C-alpha cells in the first residue's frame, strides 16, 4: 500500500527507480575496481620477486663446482632474520644455499617439479601462518670443468604489507563510493524538483482557473507539456463558447416562444380561440423549438473532432432509411472511398447526412446516388431521380421553414439545420441537377490533416 502510494507520484517513481539502480551500479563498480587493484598488485609482486631472483643470479658465482654467494647481499631484507623475504637455492632436492634471513625460519620442502632450464614458477602458500608468495626460477650453470649444472633459485615473500595495503585501499574505495552515492541521490532529488516544477505551477494555474481568477492557462511551459497546455486552452475556450451559445440559445428560445404564447393568451382572454389559429401557433412553437435545439447541438466547435469514417455513417443511415421507406424499394448507388474521413463530431455528420439522405429518399422515385471523395477538401454528393428543385427555388429551400413542396412535412428545417452545421465547420452546400434527373446536393467540408 505504501509502495503503491509512492509510485503514484512521478518523483516517487524516479526516486524509487534510482534507489534500486544506484546500489547495483555502485556495487558492481566497487567490485570491479577492487578486483583490478588486486590484479595489478599481484602482477607487481611477481615482477618484483623476479627482479630479486635476477639480482641473486647476478650475485652468485661457482667456485670449484660449488655455488657461492656473498655474505652480505645487496637486498638488506635477505640479511636480516625474519624480515619476511627469504631466498633458497636448490640442487635437485638439496638446499645448497639459504639467505641469512631464513635462519630462524623453516622453509617448506622443495616441490617435486622437475628442473627445466628457464622454467618460472609462481605460487601462493602459507609460511609461519602468513600468506606468502613463492617465485622460483630454474637455471643451468657451466662449470669450469665444462659441465653443466642445474639449480633452482627460490624467493619467498610474506604478503603482510600487501594485504594491509589492499585493505586500506578497500576502505578508501568504499568510503568514496558511499559518499558519491549520497551526493548523487541529493543531486538527483534536486534535479527532479527542478524538472517537475512546471507541473506544480500547472496545478496552481488550474486552481486559479477554477477559482475564476484566470480564464486560460499561461503558455509559459516547457516544450514537452506545451502542446498539452495549448490543447487544454483550446478545450477551455471551446467549452466557454459552447456555454455562451447554450445560454444564447436558451434566451432566444424563451423569447421567441413568448410571441406565439402571447397570441394564444390574448385570444383566450377575449374568449375567441379559433382552432385554426391554435394550430398555427402550436406549429410555430414546434418549429422554433426544433430549430433552436438543433442549432445549439450543431454548433459544437470543430476543434475536438476525430476522424469519422464517412462510409460507416452513410451505411448506417441507409439501412435505417431503407426500413422507413421500405414501400419505395429505393435503389441506393454508393460510391464511397473507404478512406473518406470527416473531421468533427459523428453526431453532426449524421445530422447532415441524415437530413440530406432523408430528403433524397422522400423525393426520389426509386433511385438515390451517394458519392464522396477528398482532395483539398471532403466532398459528398447526394442525388435522386425525383422532380428536382427548380433553379429559382434553390436559394429559397435553404432558408428556414421554407418548403418547395408543401405536401411534404418537415422539409424546411432539415435543410436549414444542414446549412447551420456546415457553416460551423466552414463547409458549404450547393444544389444542382443530378445525373439521375432530380435534385443533387453537394457539400464540401475542409479537411484537417491528422
Amino acid at each position, binding site marked *: 500500500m505504501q509502495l503503491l502510494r509512492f509510485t503514484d507520484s512521478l518523483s516517487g517513481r524516479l526516486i524509487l527507480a534510482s534507489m534500486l539502480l544506484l546500489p547495483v551500479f555502485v556495487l558492481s563498480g566497487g567490485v570491479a575496481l577492487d578486483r583490478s587493484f588486486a590484479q595489478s598488485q599481484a602482477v607487481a609482486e611477481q615482477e618484483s620477486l623476479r627482479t630479486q631472483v635476477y639480482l641473486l643470479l647476478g650475485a652468485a658465482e661457482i667456485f670449484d663446482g660449488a655455488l657461492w654467494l656473498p655474505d652480505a647481499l645487496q637486498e638488506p631484507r635477505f640479511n636480516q632474520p625474519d624480515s619476511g623475504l627469504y631466498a633458497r637455492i636448490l640442487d635437485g632436492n638439496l638446499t645448497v644455499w639459504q639467505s641469512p634471513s631464513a635462519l630462524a625460519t623453516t622453509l617448506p620442502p622443495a616441490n617435486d617439479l622437475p628442473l627445466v632450464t628457464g622454467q618460472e614458477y609462481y605460487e601462493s602458500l602459507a609460511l609461519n601462518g602468513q600468506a606468502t608468495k613463492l617465485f622460483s626460477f630454474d637455471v643451468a650453470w657451466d662449470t669450469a670443468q665444462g659441465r653443466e649444472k642445474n639449480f633452482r633459485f627460490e624467493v619467498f615473500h610474506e604478503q603482510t604489507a600487501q594485504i594491509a595495503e589492499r585493505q586500506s585501499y578497500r576502505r578508501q574505495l568504499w568510503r568514496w563510493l558511499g559518499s558519491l552515492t549520497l551526493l548523487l541521490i541529493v543531486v538527483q532529488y534536486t534535479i527532479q524538483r527542478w524538472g517537475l516544477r512546471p507541473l506544480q505551477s500547472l496545478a496552481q494555474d488550474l486552481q486559479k482557473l477554477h477559482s475564476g481568477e484566470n480564464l486560460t492557462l499561461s503558455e509559459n511551459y516547457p516544450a514537452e507539456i506545451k502542446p498539452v497546455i495549448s490543447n487544454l486552452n483550446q478545450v477551455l475556450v471551446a467549452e466557454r463558447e459552447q456555454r455562451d451559445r447554450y445560454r444564447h440559445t436558451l434566451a432566444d428560445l424563451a423569447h421567441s416562444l413568448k410571441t406565439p404564447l402571447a397570441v394564444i393568451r390574448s385570444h383566450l382572454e377575449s374568449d375567441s380561440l379559433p382552432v385554426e389559429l391554435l394550430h398555427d401557433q402550436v406549429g410555430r412553437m414546434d418549429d422554433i423549438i*426544433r430549430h433552436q435545439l*438543433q442549432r445549439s447541438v450543431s454548433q459544437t466547435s470543430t476543434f475536438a473532432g476525430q476522424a469519422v469514417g464517412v462510409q460507416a455513417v452513410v451505411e448506417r443511415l441507409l*439501412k*435505417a432509411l431503407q*426500413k*422507413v421507406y*421500405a414501400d419505395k424499394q429505393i435503389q441506393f448507388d454508393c460510391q464511397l472511398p473507404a478512406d473518406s474521413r470527416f473531421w468533427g463530431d459523428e*453526431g453532426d455528420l449524421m445530422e447532415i447526412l441524415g437530413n440530406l439522405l432523408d430528403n433524397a429518399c422522400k423525393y426520389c422515385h426509386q433511385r438515390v446516388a451517394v458519392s464522396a471523395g477528398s482532395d483539398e477538401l471532403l466532398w459528398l454528393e447526394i442525388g435522386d431521380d425525383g422532380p428536382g428543385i427548380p433553379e429559382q427555388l434553390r436559394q429559397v429551400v435553404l432558408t428556414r421553414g421554407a418548403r418547395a413542396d408543401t405536401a411534404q412535412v*418537415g422539409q424546411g428545417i432539415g435543410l436549414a439545420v444542414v446549412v447551420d452545421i456546415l457553416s460551423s465547420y466552414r463547409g458549404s452546400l450547393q444544389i444542382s441537377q443530378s445525373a439521375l434527373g432530380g435534385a443533387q446536393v453537394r457539400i464540401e467540408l475542409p479537411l484537417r490533416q491528422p
Partner: protein
Amino acid sequence: MRLLIIEDEPELNKTLCHYLHSGGYVVDSASDGREGLYLASEHPYDLAIIDLGLPKMDGIEVIKALREKRIGYPILILTARDNWQDKVVGLEAGADDYLVKPFHNEELRARVNALIRRSTGHASPVLNFGPVTLDTAAKVVHVDGQALELTSFEYNTLEYLVHHAGKVISKTELTEHLYDQDFDRDSNTIEVFIGRLRKKLDPEGSLKPITTLRGQGYRFNLTQS
C-alpha cells in the same frame, strides 16, 4: 387490428388510445417499459407504438427485448428527440419507423396503416381482388366500382381476412385482433358479421369470397390481381 401503445405521458396516452380506437383499432396501452414489454410479449398485436423515454425500462430496451424474443410485428417509435443519431439507434434496435413529437394525428394514422399493410406483404394501400377493391387508407370497399356501406366492425373483419388472404383464420384469432378484451367470446357475433359481409360483398352468391371451414375458421378465397 390490435395495437399496443407504450407511452408514459398520461394525457398523450389517453388521446392516442381514443384517437386510434375511434379509427377502428383495438388498443391496449401501458405507461411504463416493463408493463409494456409484458403486454407486448403476451398478446398477438399487429403493431406497437413505443415512446423512447419510458420509466422503468427504456423504449430501446423494450424493442431490443421484443426482437430478441423473435416477436416480429411492426414497431413505430415516438420520440421527442429530433436527431438522426437517436433515430438510427432506434431503427437499428429493431423499430420499423419513427415519429417525432409533436406530430399530427393523421400522420400517426398514416404511418400505422402503412406499417401494418407492409407487414402483411402489401405494397400499396389499395388492394384489388378481382371485382373487390379494398382501400386500406380510406377504409372503403368497392365491389364492381360500387362503394359498400360497411360498419367499422364489418370493415375490420374483412380487412383482417384480406390481409391474410388464402390462410385459415380461426374465430379466436379474429376475436383477439378485432375486439376488446371484454368481448363475449362465446357469442356468435363473428358468424353474424361474416354472414352480413357475405351478403354485402356477394349478393348473388356467385363470387363466394369467404369460405367457412368447419371447426377451423374462415378463409378469404379471392386472389390479388
